[in-house]
């Protein structure tokens, strides 16, 4: 069964005339790594907040593990199932000590102290921040803070983690730390990961890539399939990975190369094969 399922989702922010989402139908399979790509204002962040009932749809519905997010008495179940990580790590860390922050969600859920301790330790070990458990969050680097924020969500033991542009405020090192952490979460822990981003390079490792524009889904498929649609992506104001870009430009010049050579090695092999 799909962990998150949206049906004909429409959403308009209060006091605004234009609809932000115009009928989004999306199913996210449990255990998969899905990237949602779109430029600013495409409605991707709004979608994230609809996934755990922070925002409620005006029309259509969102089902999390089969539960409608509008069921108020099931709201904690929904939020415990789908954890959200936001862009600015500073604004989502609530405590003065790393481990106290990670303990926040299980404390809210009324988990027993011993069990909280166990979850906190295991969450911090998973994101590789266990040695920093006694540190003050404001003394950590951006990437470290964001990993603490991920640990804070992991301590709820969610089945799905939605990350809303988690790397937008990070330097390249921090960006790599975060992306490799979430990739590992999906591959090793079996947690569903929904990564919302506008960086092409972060989507390459995903199982599935959904492109959003103007509140609609405009492309959906494996990264190879989606990136091969170079014209479409360009018309949506998105760039493609440099490898795809190179092959696309060569093809425009009359070469015949496969557009789905995504990694640098594949691209190099494709070019080498064509030169023979």
């Amino acid at each position, binding site marked *: 069964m799909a962990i998150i399922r949206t049906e004909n989702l429409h959403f308009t922010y209060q006091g605004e005339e234009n609809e932000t989402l115009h009928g989004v139908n999306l199913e996210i399979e449990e255990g998969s790594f899905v990237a949602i790509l779109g430029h600013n204002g495409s409605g991707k962040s709004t979608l994230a907040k609809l996934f755990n009932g922070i925002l409620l749809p005006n029309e259509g519905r969102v089902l999390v593990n089969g539960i409608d997010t509008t069921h108020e008495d099931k709201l904690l179940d929904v939020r415990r199932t789908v954890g959200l990580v936001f862009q600015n790590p500073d604004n989502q860390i*609530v*405590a003065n000590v790393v481990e106290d922050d990670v303990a926040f969600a299980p404390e809210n859920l009324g988990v027993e102290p011993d069990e909280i301790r166990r979850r906190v330790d295991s969450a911090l070990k998973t994101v590789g921040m266990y040695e920093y458990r006694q540190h003050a969050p404001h003394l950590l680097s951006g990437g470290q803070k964001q990993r603490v924020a991920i640990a804070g969500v992991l301590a709820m033991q969610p089945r799905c983690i939605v990350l809303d542009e988690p790397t937008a405020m990070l330097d390249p090192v921090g960006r790599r730390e975060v992306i490799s952490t979430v990739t590992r979460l999906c591959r090793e822990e079996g947690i569903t990961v929904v990564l919302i981003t506008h960086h092409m390079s972060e989507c390459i490792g995903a199982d599935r890539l959904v492109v959003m524009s103007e509140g609609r889904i405009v492309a959906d498929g494996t990264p190879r399939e989606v990136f091969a649609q170079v014209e479409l992506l360009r018309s949506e104001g998105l760039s493609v990975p440099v490898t795809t870009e190179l092959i696309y430009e060569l093809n425009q010049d009359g070469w015949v190369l496969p557009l789905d050579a995504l990694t640098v090695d594949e691209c190099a092999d494709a070019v080498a094969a064509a030169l023979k």
Partner: protein
Amino acid sequence: MLKDITLGQYFPGDTIIHKLDPRTKLILVIVFIVALFLAVDWISYAFMFVVTALCVKVSTIKLKSILKGLKPLIFIIVFTGILNLFYTQGGTVLFDWWIFTISTAGIKRAFLMIVRIMLLITGTFLLTYTTSPIALTDGLEMLLNPLKKIKVPVHEMSMIMSMALRFIPTLIEETDKIMSAQKARGADFSTGKITERAKALLPLLVPLFVSSFRRADELAVAMESRCYHGGEGRTRMNALHMARRDYLAFLAGAIVLGGMIAMNIYGI
């Protein structure tokens, strides 16, 4: 520059005083203040002095840090001393001019008053020096818990307090950043008349204020996403609990208080 501001002047340590439950420390500070005000004469003051000195010694807080803490209060100390010096009657008059009279009783009283204030400050500082602000907030929340019965929002107040403490370094960092941005465009925060300097702060405060609201909004969403729904049904990872040392500390406090009451009765 702004980063140098330390918060709540907490000195981390590993002594028995650091390890005491914050509730114990809060109650003992109140006991300490009461005992201090029961002191009447040399012997009882000397006793309180020894008790305070002992606590400072055990806490391994440096004398220098305590003196540094006393510094801003020097005016009050001197002022109290002078008032008591001139306005105490009795004893042998040593000096008499116009309305100023200094007597032996005045000197003694002024001296003891100064000692009392200094001990009072040292005692309360010992609390903030050895207890992290968060532990203090938690301790206060639990001590005030009974007030929930009369609808005092104890959990909410303590949550607000700890959030404020959490965001002080973040906001200081942001202030620094905005200041640098304004300075780069020619703003001057450090020279000019006081009114000019106050005016220069306005372009600093407005963006800071606006961004605080944005932060508060994002924080609220992040907290809700992590299942925050008020204090109801909430557990704590490090629940405060009284240990043997806390009961021993209470016993010591009771002995000091009892001793002081006895000395107060006998007037020594």
